[in-house]
């Protein structure tokens, strides 16, 4: 349910940007959610819709387009690339929940599957990003 806080960041950023761009109505907001963060899409969309009510400029009810970004990781030590989906099953519930709150916690609870190093990076699909906003001027 901390999805609400992230939804609020999206709505706030959207409205800020729309004001800068002098939009009268916001018609489309495209959001990517990184697989790593394991956001509950329904809750997230519900929060977005609730928080969008009575914003200025108004956000159309069906404006939100949510896409999922596959998480890929790569190792600085050995160069290996891998997918979060392959690694996920090794994490227990508490570990996965911690990564849900803060994606970088993956460096605490996971290792490069090839060399065992914690010195890897999240190449794609970290968390929630605002990709584009469309509207009418």
């Amino acid at each position: 349910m901390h999805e609400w806080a992230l939804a609020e960041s999206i709505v706030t950023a959207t409205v800020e940007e729309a004001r800068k761009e002098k939009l009268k109505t916001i018609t489309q907001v495209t959001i990517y959610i990184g697989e790593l963060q394991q956001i509950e899409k329904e809750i997230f969309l519900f929060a977005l819709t609730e928080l969008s009510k009575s914003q200025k400029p108004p956000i159309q009810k069906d404006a939100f387009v949510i896409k999922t970004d596959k998480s890929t990781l790569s190792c600085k030590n050995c160069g290996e690339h891998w997918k979060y989906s392959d690694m996920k099953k090794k994490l227990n519930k508490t570990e996965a929940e911690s990564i849900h709150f803060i994606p970088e916690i993956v460096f605490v609870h996971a290792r490069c599957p090839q060399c065992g190093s914690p010195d890897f990076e999240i190449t794609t699909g970290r968390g929630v990003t605002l990709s584009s906003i469309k509207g009418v001027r």
Partner: protein
Amino acid sequence: MEPRTSVIENRLKNINRIIAVASGKGGVGKSMVASTLALHLSQHGYRVGLLDLDLYGPSSHIILGVKNTFPKEEKGIIPPTVHGISFMSIVYFTEEKPSPFRGIDISNIILELLAITQWGRLDFLIIDMPPGIGDETLDVIRYIKRSEFLVVTTPSKVAMGAVSKLLTMLIELKKPVLGIIENMTITKSSFIEHEVQRLQVRYLGKIHFDHTLEESIGNPDALSQTHVMKDLSKILQKIKL
């Protein structure tokens, strides 16, 4: 577009004052001062939050004896209350395992924590800073514009070397510096006081080296009775805290 930065102001808007306990140097007592400051304020009836931003070596939970708690998930995360203090730390998520984070990770973690933590209404938010002038310090300056700095040093030339650098930067950037606390003094010396005067920052006083402090670590009630707390309280009077 980075959405998290937009919501930070909103998260902090019901907090009256934000005080970062910083130093530049490690091991001078930042965590000890931050924790006892938070305890002191809470005991004086203020609503207090404590945010441990030392992500590699979080210490405030050790000093305050925080165990077996976890933030509540509710429109964000709500920090558990520990001895009257709303306490947030990376330790809830790391389970005391090593945290091999690079700078970009540190920055992302701080942004995430600031974006999702629901502090509610607070009189004071105390931030326990790590050493250095790296991502944590730069991000506090960048994202928490109204933070005030309380700077801790020890009597040593070695400590003051690093502390002067932080002070010089804070002064250059016109950040409010509440003053300098000289911690762990043993012999009489005015070296730090002179150095601080040269930088035109307020020297707040000394906290003496307390040989029995270690026994009180992990026990807030005992901590409140230490000489450290007594010395700190005197110092805090000077800045009306």
